[in-house]
């Protein structure tokens, strides 16, 4: 019996592998990857690379302003995303929701919002509220809700009841239970996911300009339209620097938090 099952498993794996390879070759054929353009691309790439170096920033002040706007859009998008997610997570978590159907409704909303990419939300918000940083903020906020709402609700659902019961047994009031029992146990998940989302939002904020939602992405599109590749490279490097610095700062703050907590507990 075991032998049969194992050979069956083996067969399934081989079928998956064969299908994967077949689909790969089929996709290659469909995309037309073996194309004359590939051969021509080398000379064009050479031209492009020559045009890109040395990278320049034509109007450094404008680009710095656009970069700051992107950062601010990311901060505001994350901020509103977190606020709405917290408010909705209370209704989405099964153990806090007034009714189970409300929980499913809110979770379904989150799943839908999450499945539509952020840039498409930005496209829609530009039509709905016009150009500028506002559609970017709203698009990032709504896309963040899709992800954060899910993890916050799961964090609330997974609260250890033992901790709460133990606190109640000591005669703690409801306020004390929330402050000392519930908040500390969800705070860790809460903070780490929010920080992670900020990193994602910053990446999106830098490219939102591609669809016309302001920020540094717009500078990039503008430079590439006039085929000023040295400027494209310059702006790309600025974006690279922004994302890298933000990552380093958030990582530093997290580490510092961990170290302080560790030291306090020794």
């Amino acid at each position, binding site marked *: 019996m075991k032998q049969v099952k194992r050979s069956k498993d083996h067969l399934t794996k081989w079928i998956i592998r064969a299908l994967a390879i077949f689909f790969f070759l089929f996709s290659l054929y469909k995309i037309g990857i073996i194309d004359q353009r590939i051969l021509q691309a080398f000379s064009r790439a050479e031209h492009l690379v020559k045009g890109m170096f040395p990278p320049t920033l034509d109007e450094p002040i404008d680009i710095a302003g656009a970069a700051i706007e992107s950062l601010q859009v990311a*901060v505001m998008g994350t901020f509103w995303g977190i606020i709405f997610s917290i408010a909705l997570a209370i209704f989405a978590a099964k153990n806090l929701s007034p009714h189970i159907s409300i929980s499913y409704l809110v979770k379904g909303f989150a799943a839908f919002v999450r499945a539509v990419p952020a840039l498409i939300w930005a496209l829609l918000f530009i039509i709905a509220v016009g150009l500028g940083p506002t559609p970017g903020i709203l698009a990032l906020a709504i896309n963040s809700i899709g992800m954060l709402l899910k993890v916050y609700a799961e964090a609330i659902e997974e609260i250890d009841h033992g901790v709460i019961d133990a606190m109640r047994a000591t005669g703690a009031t409801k306020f004390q239970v929330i402050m000392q029992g519930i908040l500390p146990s969800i705070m860790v998940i809460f903070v780490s996911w929010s920080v992670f989302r900020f990193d994602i939002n910053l990446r999106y904020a830098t490219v939102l300009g591609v*669809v016309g939602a302001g920020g540094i992405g717009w500078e990039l599109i503008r430079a590439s339209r006039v085929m000023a590749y040295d400027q494209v490279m310059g702006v790309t490097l600025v974006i690279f620097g922004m994302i890298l610095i933000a990552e380093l700062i958030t990582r530093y703050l997290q580490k510092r938090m961990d170290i302080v907590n560790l030291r306090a507990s020794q």
Partner: protein
Amino acid sequence: MEMRAERLIPSVTEKSRTDVLSDLKKRKRVVLVNKAMIGCLIIALVVWSWIGTNFNLSFLYTGFTNITKFIFTDLLPPDFRVIGRYINPALQTLYMSYVGMVISVILSIVLGFMAAKNTSFHPVLALISRSIITFIRAVPSIIIGMLLVVTLGLGPLAGTIALGIGGVGILGKAFADLLEGIDKGQVEAIRATGANWFQVMGQGVWPQFKPGFVAWSLYKMDLNIREAAVLGIIGAGGIGYTLQGNINLFQYKQASVGILMIFILILIVEFTTAKVREKIL
């Protein structure tokens, strides 16, 4: 938090009560000061951004009422007569993300292998590979796509290669971290039996590397389908291009078909990758 409580317990039994209480208060104060500092920093950042973007609370209300109104009057009901025009781009998006995934897996294995300290041929090579991975990770794939559209022309080819290169940022890091985390003992044991390099890799490294490798590669597929859907906006092929075209012509009822298609495509891919993950692992 639970860890902390456990660590505190032995100290409680060792010290006298008053001592413990004052000690605990002191520790709480240190944590509190740190939290307050980070909190102030975040509040300052939010206030600065609020002012910088001229944000107004009323924007939230108008924004969300406008988008709801837009969705219900302009986007809905979808005009399903144009579904035929969306099927080919949707399939193209699927091919793009799949080929893109394969390309990034191949590139990432090579780069990740060289970037991991324990498998790299030389520390300098490891540093260079890590730097390349970090650089690619910090540059959004839509920017890579823009540059490739210039080199390769409009169409799915540019998008596919953009996905392939962009994926190295995530997969390269993941693979390098996985390789650095493998158990040395197993590798050493196989090497001790006199196995050659290929046998060590196949029997010692690969079994430990495989679960993470499969999980991350499939996760990349999930990400790719989202990215491929929007790469079309810059002309790199796929469903985004048709969608952008409809939006530019104010054909919102047709655009909503595109959005629905993207939604369905993402769900199908996520379902399939979940099934494959189950079967392989």
